[in-house]
């Protein structure tokens, strides 16, 4: 009897067999996700799906079924904010056409081991593909266009490969931001304001960007006038730049074809290139140890922005640069180049010749085995992960990214975390020149309140400036213990 009981309980403990869940035109993808368990594959057949899908389970695959050129289409009608949000680990999304959302096509919120491939994304607002604060991810064979900020935006991630994507007609083609161990390879970035950007945004929870390879990409004709939201940080990116390395370290640029970018082919710079507002003492602003190996570059800098034109005049040049590195510390000799004589360059006079000749030994930055799901030991960990995985996607501490700076929210709500928690569930547009805040009503009220308290405690030094705010400071100190 005992044995039978044991056997039965073993059987009950086995995970249910992974199954396919079919979704057809008129069905809801979210309903299928709600039904799914770990390991399930949701097959989405051709049709039009007007919804936002939130996946907070592990091991779920969303797979479009394309039939004779008919795609499953997620249609946001310029009303819905996000097509797909995921926070589960080992999430895969592929073969979907996603159009006309206001915020993101696909946003990851701290899920590890993600695969995003073979998607066709058109005009989905601020970002196209946006994994945030995730480890070990693959983004390949996606085609994206018409994005107001970055078509592919890898934010605060580790170990990511971005390969074989086409990005065009967007402000930024591919952004690798506050991310470590990234390979950007074989992509076609054309007709954006800027093609590929590797940089640090100051004021975010992750402070560094390093160990990044940009290799064998076509970076061509990125001369589209900047159409980012006026006043946002991306709106300050100068038009006509192929590759930008801003404040990031240990970046290798090899084997790219970089042509026809009107301001410059490659720009290496500190943060001043885009904004002077970079007062994050924890973010080191200089681009260090940059290696420009062999690349093919011509016809760059034929009609540069005014600042670069001014630099040209001082050098009596009539054409702009393939490589522009005349801004601050970018000129230091810890940066190096191969065959410098081939290019028109500003600011690389002190650069050394690279000892490294190829990055071929690196074939991927993906981890050999899956990254462990993020450990969440305590409530505080969960709340911090939520803030970094969701809120920090739009709110930097002291500058305007997509939403207002966290500092301004703190000032407005310093003694009222409940006010933030309520606003998160039912946001009301208050700022005429900002995109509307998407509702976070899918988070429980308790979590919303805790995230609000977490936000009010960011950089408590600032709060200490206010004598009347000692109660809040004490609360923050208690939370951090």
């Amino acid at each position, binding site marked *: 009897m005992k044995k039978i009981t044991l056997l039965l309980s073993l059987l009950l403990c086995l995970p249910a067999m992974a199954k396919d869940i079919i979704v057809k035109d008129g069905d809801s993808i979210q309903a299928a996700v709600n039904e799914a368990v770990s390991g399930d594959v949701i097959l989405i057949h051709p049709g039009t799906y007007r919804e936002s899908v939130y996946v907070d389970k592990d091991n779920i695959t969303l797979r479009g079924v394309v039939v004779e050129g008919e795609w499953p289409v997620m249609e946001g009608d310029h009303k819905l904010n996000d097509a797909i949000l995921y926070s589960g680990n080992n999430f895969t999304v592929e073969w979907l056409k996603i159009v006309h959302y206001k915020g993101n096509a696909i946003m990851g919120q701290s899920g590890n081991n993600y695969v995003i491939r073979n998607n066709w994304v058109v005009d989905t607002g601020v970002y196209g593909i946006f994994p945030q604060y995730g480890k070990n991810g693959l983004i390949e064979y996606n085609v994206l266009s018409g994005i107001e900020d970055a078509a592919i935006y890898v934010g605060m991630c580790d170990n990511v490969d971005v390969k074989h994507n086409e990005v065009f007609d967007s402000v930024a083609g591919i952004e690798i931001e506050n991310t470590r161990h990234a390979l950007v390879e074989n992509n076609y970035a054309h007709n954006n304001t800027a093609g590929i950007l590797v940089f640090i945004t100051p004021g975010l929870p992750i402070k560094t960007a390093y160990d990044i390879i940009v290799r064998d990409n076509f970076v061509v004709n990125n001369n589209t006038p900047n159409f980012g939201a*006026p*006043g946002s*940080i991306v709106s*300050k990116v100068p038009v006509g730049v192929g590759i930008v390395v801003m404040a990031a370290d240990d970046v290798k640029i090899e084997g790219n074809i970089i042509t026809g970018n009107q301001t410059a082919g490659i720009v290496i710079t500190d943060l001043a290139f885009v*904004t*002077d*507002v970079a*007062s994050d003492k924890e973010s080191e602003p200089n681009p260090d140890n940059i290696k420009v190996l062999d690349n093919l570059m011509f016809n760059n800098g034929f009609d540069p922005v005014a600042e670069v034109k001014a630099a040209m005049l001082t050098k009596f040049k009539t054409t702009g640069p393939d490589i522009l590195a005349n801004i601050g510390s970018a000129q230091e000799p810890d940066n190096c180049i191969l065959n410098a004589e081939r290019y028109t360059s500003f600011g690389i006079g002190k650069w050394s010749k690279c000892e490294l000749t190829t990055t071929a030994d690196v074939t991927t930055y993906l981890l050999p085995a899956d990254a462990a799901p993020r450990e969440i030991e305590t409530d505080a960990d969960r709340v911090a992960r939520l803030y970094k995985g969701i809120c920090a996607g739009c709110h930097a501490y*002291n*500058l*305007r990214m997509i939403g*207002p*700076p966290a*500092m*301004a929210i*703190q*000032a*407005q709500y*310093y003694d009222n975390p409940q006010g933030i928690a309520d606003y998160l569930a039912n946001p009301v547009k*208050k*700022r*005429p*020149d*900002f995109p509307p805040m998407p509702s976070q009503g899918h988070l429980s009220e308790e979590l919303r309140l805790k995230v609000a308290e977490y936000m009010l405690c960011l950089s408590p030094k*600032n*709060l200490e*400036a*206010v*004598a*009347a*705010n000692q109660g809040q400071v004490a609360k923050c100190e208690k939370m951090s213990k």
Partner: protein
Amino acid sequence: MIINRLLLKGSVVAALVLVAACSDEPAVSVDSQAAAEQAQNVLASGDVNDGKQLYVACQACHGAKGGGNKAMNAPSLVNQSPWYVKRQLMAFKEGRRGTHPDDVYGQQMAAIATTIADEAAVDSLVAYVDSLPDRAPEATLDGNVKKGADFYSMVCGSCHGPNAEGNELLDSPALAGVDDWYLARQFELFRKGIRGADDKYGRQMVMMAPALPTEEDVHNVVSYIQSLAE
């Protein structure tokens, strides 16, 4: 009081010299004290429904057309939103502004505002000020407008609006059209906690002060704001 009246005539020049000589230190000039006294009389005896008549109390410092007077340390009033002018007048009147011992000009204004009879009188005054034609103040600072624009859009514009026009939904006043010297001074008062210690809206600005770390940053931003008004 008698001494003040005797000193009133001919004291303007002396007072201006005094202010100029002590420009780092706020000083209440003798003539402005006299003006304050006159103002208190007008406010105490005026008809609460007659904003124009009550405004006579204000014009000695803020000018007949509300354009302000830098020599008197009195800012222009005309380009500001009426809801904000009212909030500040009520704050002065009810002891939420101008209470800090180091806020000399604020104390002056508070002393006058406490003699406004009631909220109806405040409303009449605000309506009258609102009826005066807007006029951009003159630039007195020479900051770097381009750098100022950068800071403004990254930080300040989140609440004060893309054109520094203010945003009532966020309780944030217009800044464009307010005298540059006055904005710079208020920012320093916020930074030092002299203004905003006892008023929740002011405290928001106290918390924002670290966003503009140096006086130069403040001047750049203020010059940019001035350029929006021109």
